[in-house]
């Protein structure tokens, strides 16, 4: 599994971890990781610790997640980005939409 999902015990926090390349090949898995949940989590963490690469379709997937989680009122943190991944997120100015660390 290259997309691993974990929901906190109180059901309020969803953590999605991506392993390997975060590109169009992960599209289906990534969408299912949040769409199959019965209740909407209050906050979402996308863990990129094991992600080696991120392309523009991954950015599109993050936008889909944000839209699903309520758009401007969503609470999404993108954590453990490598310096390369951070660079891509910075060029796209995605730090204006997501809390990136």
């Amino acid at each position, binding site marked *: 599994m290259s997309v691993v999902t974990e929901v906190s015990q109180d059901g309020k926090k969803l953590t999605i971890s991506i392993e390997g390349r975060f590109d169009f090949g992960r599209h289906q898995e990534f969408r299912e990781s949040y769409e199959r949940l019965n209740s909407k989590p209050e906050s979402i963490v996308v863990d990129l610790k094991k992600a080696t690469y991120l392309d523009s*379709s991954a*950015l*599109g*997937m993050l936008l*889909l997640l944000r839209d699903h989680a309520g758009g401007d009122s969503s609470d999404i943190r993108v954590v453990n980005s490598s310096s390369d991944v951070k660079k891509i997120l910075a*060029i*796209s*100015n*995605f730090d204006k939409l997501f809390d990136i660390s």
Partner: protein
Amino acid sequence: MQPLEPLTILIAEDSAADRLLLSTIVRRQGHEVLTAANGAEAVEAFRSQRPHLVLMDAMMPVMDGFEAAQQIKALAGETLVPIIFLTSLTESEALARCLEAGGDDFLAKPYNQVILAAKIKAMDRLRRLQATVLEQRDLIARHHDYLLNEQRVAKAVFDKVAHSGCLNAPNIRYLQSPYALFNGDLLLAAFTPAGDMNVLLGDFTGHGLPAAVGAMPLAEVFYGMTAKGYGLSETLREMNAKLKRILPVDMFCCATLLCLSFQRGSVEVWNGGMPDGYLHSTASGERIALTARHLPLGVLSPQTFDDRTEVFPMAVGDRVFLLSDGVIDTCDANEQLFGVERLEQVFAANRQPDALFEEIEQALRDFRGEARDDVSMVEVSLLEAAQLSPPAPVYSDSGQSSPLDWSVSFEFRAATLKRFNPLPYLLQLLLEVHGLRAQSGALYSVLAELYSNALEHGVLGLDSSLKRDASGFARYYQQRNARLDELRDGYVRVHLQVMPKGEGGCLSIRVEDSGKGFDVARVMERPVDGVRLSGRGVSLIRQLSHHARWTDNGRSAHVEFFWEALA
């Protein structure tokens, strides 16, 4: 396993007894039988009746089985018609000859019914497999043809739209794959009515047709609004709103938009999600990075979209260089990225500005060994305004309804000044007067200068001497944005009056503002030139229009345009 469908099987055998025996066995297994007594008959039977499979005796009179097998295989072409040799030969050399002649298998005499049935079954499987492969190959080839044709048509339509601009202008050089559209790459350039040049390099998410569909509406907004004289901010707002409205959530367009003003010697930049562009100063050799400060187009709602641009001074010979991420992401054989550092090394090593473009291409080729099809680069340099000739606009009306005696006054107040650009409307109105059309460029430039002087120096109280040097230039435009944001009151009034005069006519423009005014006599003493960064507006107005004068301590500017009888 699915039951064997009855096949038509050709039996070529010179011995009548053997032929009868085999025919009986094969018929009993449920197949239809054709027979031939020698190779020539076998070839003829194949030609006329196309059996599915052939049982072929090797040694026959007239034409032997080897020759017949070769001819039948040639006739069958790509279709697999299995040939099983019937042979009493036992030497391996002879058996090998059967296969070399095109045989697929052999069966030793005397015949074993069970083995014969099994071999027919196995050959039928092969035959079907081959048929399926051929069918799928043809299907793929057909789809591929359709796809190429669709792309060709889509590209032809798009090229009509995209190339309606001025990519062939002498100050533009670019590199783009002919099918860049299907990588989502987009390059557009067009002149504004004032003779400025707008350039857009964009990169849609994804590949193929999905990446191409957004390009058309984006190009239409770009060309439409550029031709009408809208500024970058309004054009960006409209492009963003349109893409946000029509694209799915996960699609967007990274883009850098430039406006080069040859008259003012400046470049206005907005970068949303593209790699750094570069502004090269020829005189100092310095490089300013044009960094992405914004989210790509099509992500934010119209309410939250940020259309703030940056403005930099440019001298004649300076150039702006933009590139797509295909340049930086070009990989070598070891999956190493070309990267920003290597690109900057090429910049640093450059001695002749004119050769830079080739040097980057060369560096990419050396690095990768072959060209990538999603590499887009464009270089735009600043020429003397006179070296460029923007195409004359085309008007479709007859000219019979030209209004020749009228006047109109506008007052634009604070809330309007913040976001609305009245120039395109004013220009459109004035170009209803046919006599003014020939000088639409000068008219727009003068209107734009009068308006921005009234807004920036009058209403906003900005000091043009700030624009003395490059850093002051940037500070000036930061202050402009900040003061505009805070603006509570103030106005710009525009009075237009058109009157017939002999066979031609006269347009008089008066622009007033609510600012503090300026020392008219002192500004008028300065020579009319175009070298300094500051104070450009006034000399430009004096060069392009008649009777330019300032009254009310500089708060009221007045110019005139004339035209003669129309041919």
